[in-house]
């Protein structure tokens, strides 16, 4: 059922989030907050070497320490076959996942876990870690992506032979695979072009920077049930991964989601849960494990650092004739960088006839990369949007006009092949150009940058339950942790369909035993896909309410309509009956068949692609290289903003993270391959005082596949900021900046060169 022609009461309004008071008063329970009787502390011993063979591990002294209850090493983890298996959002190689959680025979990065202990206190656990003797055979390491691709680079895995190249390699390599996509002939396009831009670009790995470190409590019961309480982006993902790694049946594992203090993709995988489970099984007591910030930086997923080359050619009228990109992405210690989506998204905003992207997935001695909003897209977008900006400069065109000249629209063939369905990219460009911020005059040392970005958005599997209480209040059960205000948006959609007050709808996030399967909270899917499931569950309730009213009035169900929260006769011919509210019907539900509950389980189709266009104004201090962001304007097609305030929040959050990526964030490794800045003092993320108010414009080009027109909104806003910020800085200092981050030393160096 579509609601596009209906007057909406709740959808599109700004309601108070149900979890807000608990979160601002400290009542909400996050991953580290649970206490169980007899609970132990679990801690992990990590490798100090970036690359080494584990010769031996002696835990005897640690085990003898009073207060130590269990010790786990890689030998305790079941052997996993090296094969891809469907899990969570996509395919996972469980051998790599297992080895990343606990090294088996080799450590591959500074911080790689080698053993874990459970003890009666933090102090005892820490002392036990110091008593574990690990003998390493230290190996040469490689941190940089291009160094890792060289034939003489230290090889991390002797089982990896580059896929996607001919002839098939006979020697192992750090280059996991080569991917290529595109169509037409870019070289022929350059021959027709009046201007050709070709540049190399680099970006550094950056962490998702969630405030809450990874944390889990696990209790292994005497009847072999594994109960987990943890912070994650998906309790079902945690269940699947933990069960697989420990060779358990899914029904043996019950995962209760805690509140989550940020994830941004970094909590779509696991690190602690299987280790805590093994410690609990050995000690027969519940075990809590909480990472320190140091551990979060050293051992959990950043997104990939990259080295890229982009070439774009256009005729004098601004028509792009040819485009290509070569993208080299760091995967970290095991395969799996997001280079393929990088290739797919790089040129997605543009209608091109000749385009080619080639990507390389490369392992290096860094922590395994993890998803980060729009995985793979921001880096590629930075390179392409920088080249587009330079092209506009060379052509003497307004950068938005150049983008409008080449903008993708419905029916455009995307660079990865298929034709776009309904999209709103042009609308974002037009709104950006019309925004007052775009015409504010700039002063000395100031610059303005524009960039656009794209993300696919995804649907996938969701379950939902809507239970009607006897007094007419409603409880909705979702299976997705609430990261960005989804409780509110989901409850608003339920209230809209049922025609009841939003405040009469309460929503909880169920554990894995109390709600059907849900894919992770990720890919900007929850308001779209789980929202669709909740709409269908609410419509199931409406159908039952109409049936109960029909029963009450002794007329056919087709003669009953549901309007504004009341069952009414469809017409005068149906009879003259006093309308029945949801509460009226619920109060008598026992007489008409029993409780009224609606359910839906779907694999949501039709996630509408998202586009955004951003404008960034900066001022650069030429003496210090410090960049001040003066103004930032983010425009995005949301399809339909269910809760505009939270859509704006997603946009502002993405911008803040993207500006940090562009200006300051980077991992600093020493010659010894050890991370030197594993903390927020030395890893510089933007704070509130670093940023101006981020202006937002929500464009609404409805997604026809969703009842309310929703498109996912969480990924797109982190795609354009790298390019927009870099373009602004380049204009401010009069030099093209191609290597992120644009930290003060980098800018001073550029100015001095």
């Amino acid at each position: 059922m579509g609601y596009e022609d209906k007057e909406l009461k709740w959808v599109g309004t700004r309601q108070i989030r149900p979890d807000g008071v608990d979160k601002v008063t400290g009542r909400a329970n996050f991953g580290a907050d649970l206490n169980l009787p007899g609970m132990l502390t679990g801690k992990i011993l990590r490798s100090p070497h970036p690359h080494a063979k584990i010769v031996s591990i002696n835990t005897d002294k640690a085990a003898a320490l009073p207060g130590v209850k269990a010790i786990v090493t890689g030998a305790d983890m079941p052997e996993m076959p090296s094969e891809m298996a469907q899990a969570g959002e996509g395919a996972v190689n469980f051998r790599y996942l297992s080895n990343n959680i606990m090294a088996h025979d080799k450590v591959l990065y500074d911080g790689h876990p080698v053993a874990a202990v459970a003890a009666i206190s933090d102090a005892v656990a820490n002392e036990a870690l110091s008593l574990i003797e690990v003998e390493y055979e230290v190996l040469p390491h490689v941190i940089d992506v291009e160094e890792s691709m060289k034939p003489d680079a230290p090889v991390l895995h002797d089982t990896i032979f580059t896929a996607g190249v001919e002839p098939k390699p006979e020697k192992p390599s750090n280059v996991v695979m080569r991917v290529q996509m595109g169509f037409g002939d870019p070289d022929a396009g350059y021959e027709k072009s009046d201007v050709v831009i070709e540049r190399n670009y680099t970006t550094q790995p950056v962490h998702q920077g969630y405030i809450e470190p990874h944390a889990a409590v696990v209790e292994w019961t005497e009847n072999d049930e594994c109960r987990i309480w943890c912070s994650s982006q998906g309790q079902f993902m945690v269940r699947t991964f933990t069960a697989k790694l420990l060779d358990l049946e899914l029904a043996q594992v019950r995962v209760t989601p805690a509140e989550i203090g940020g994830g941004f993709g970094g909590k779509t995988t696991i690190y602690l849960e299987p280790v805590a489970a093994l410690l609990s099984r050995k000690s027969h007591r519940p075990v809590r494990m909480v990472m320190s910030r140091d551990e979060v930086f050293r051992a959990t997923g950043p997104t990939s650092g990259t080295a890229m080359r982009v070439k774009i050619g256009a005729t004098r009228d601004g028509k792009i004739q040819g485009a290509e990109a070569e993208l080299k992405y760091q995967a970290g210690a095991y395969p799996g960088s997001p280079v393929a989506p990088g290739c797919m998204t790089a040129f997605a905003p543009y209608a091109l006839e000749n385009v080619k992207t080639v990507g390389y997935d490369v392992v290096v001695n860094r922590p395994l990369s993890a998803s980060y909003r729009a995985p793979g897209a921001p880096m590629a977008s930075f390179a392409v949007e920088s080249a587009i900006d330079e092209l506009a400069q060379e052509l003497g065109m307004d950068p938005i006009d150049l983008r409008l000249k080449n903008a993708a629209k419905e029916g455009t063939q995307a660079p990865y092949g298929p034709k776009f369905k309904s999209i709103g990219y042009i609308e974002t460009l037009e709104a950006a150009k019309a925004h007052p911020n775009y015409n504010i005059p700039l002063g000395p040392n100031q610059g303005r940058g524009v960039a656009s970005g794209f993300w696919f958005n995804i649907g996938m599997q969701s379950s939902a339950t809507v239970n009607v209480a006897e007094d007419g209040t409603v409880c909705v059960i979702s299976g997705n942790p609430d990261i960005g205000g989804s409780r509110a948006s989901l409850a608003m959609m339920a209230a809209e369909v049922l025609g009841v007050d939003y405040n009469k709808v309460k929503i909880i996030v169920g554990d894995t035993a109390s709600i059907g399967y849900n894919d992770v909270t990720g890919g900007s899917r929850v308001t779209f896909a789980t929202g669709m499931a909740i709409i269908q569950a609410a419509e199931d309730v409406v159908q039952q309410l109409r049936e109960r009213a029909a029963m009450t009035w002794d007329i056919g169900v087709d003669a009953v309509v549901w309007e504004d929260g009341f069952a009414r006769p469809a017409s005068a011919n149906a009879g003259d009956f006093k309308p029945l509210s949801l509460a009226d019907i619920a109060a008598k539900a026992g007489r008409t068949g029993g409780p009224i509950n609606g359910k839906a389980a779907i694999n949501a189709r039709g996630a509408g692609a998202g586009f955004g266009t951003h404008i960034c104004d900066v001022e650069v201090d030429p003496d210090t290289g410090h960049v001040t962001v003066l103004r930032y304007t983010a425009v995005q097609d949301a399809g339909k903003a269910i809760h505009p305030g939270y859509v704006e929040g997603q946009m502002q959050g993405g911008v803040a993270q993207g500006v940090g990526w562009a200006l300051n964030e980077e991992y600093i490794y020493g010659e010894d391959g050890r991370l030197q800045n594993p903390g927020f003092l030395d890893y510089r993320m933007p704070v509130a005082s670093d940023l101006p108010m981020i202006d937002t414009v929500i464009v609404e080009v409805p997604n026809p596949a969703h009842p309310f027109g929703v498109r996912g909104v969480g990924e797109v806003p982190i795609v354009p900021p790298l390019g927009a910020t870099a373009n602004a800085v380049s204009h401010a200092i009069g030099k093209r900046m191609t290597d992120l981050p644009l930290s003060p030393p980098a800018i001073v160096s550029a100015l001095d060169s």
Partner: protein
Amino acid sequence: MAQVVLSNELGRQFAGGQTHFDVDAVNVRKLIGALDEMFPGLGAELQSDGIAIAIDGEIFSDPFLEAIADNSEVYFLPAIKGG
């Protein structure tokens, strides 16, 4: 006939470098069966994890019975994750 496009890698691996085909199939299951008959082994690869399908511009991460029209455009793509 649906117009089907494989990735360069799959085309090289199974179809002698060819990536574009016209295939008569009413749904994804039949399409994959038809491709597997043309290029033995390709069907298993297309059903492996990590591959998505776009049918007339809509991307499906785990398709099976999705309908394919007579003139549909079908692309086999890397599966998409999110953050």
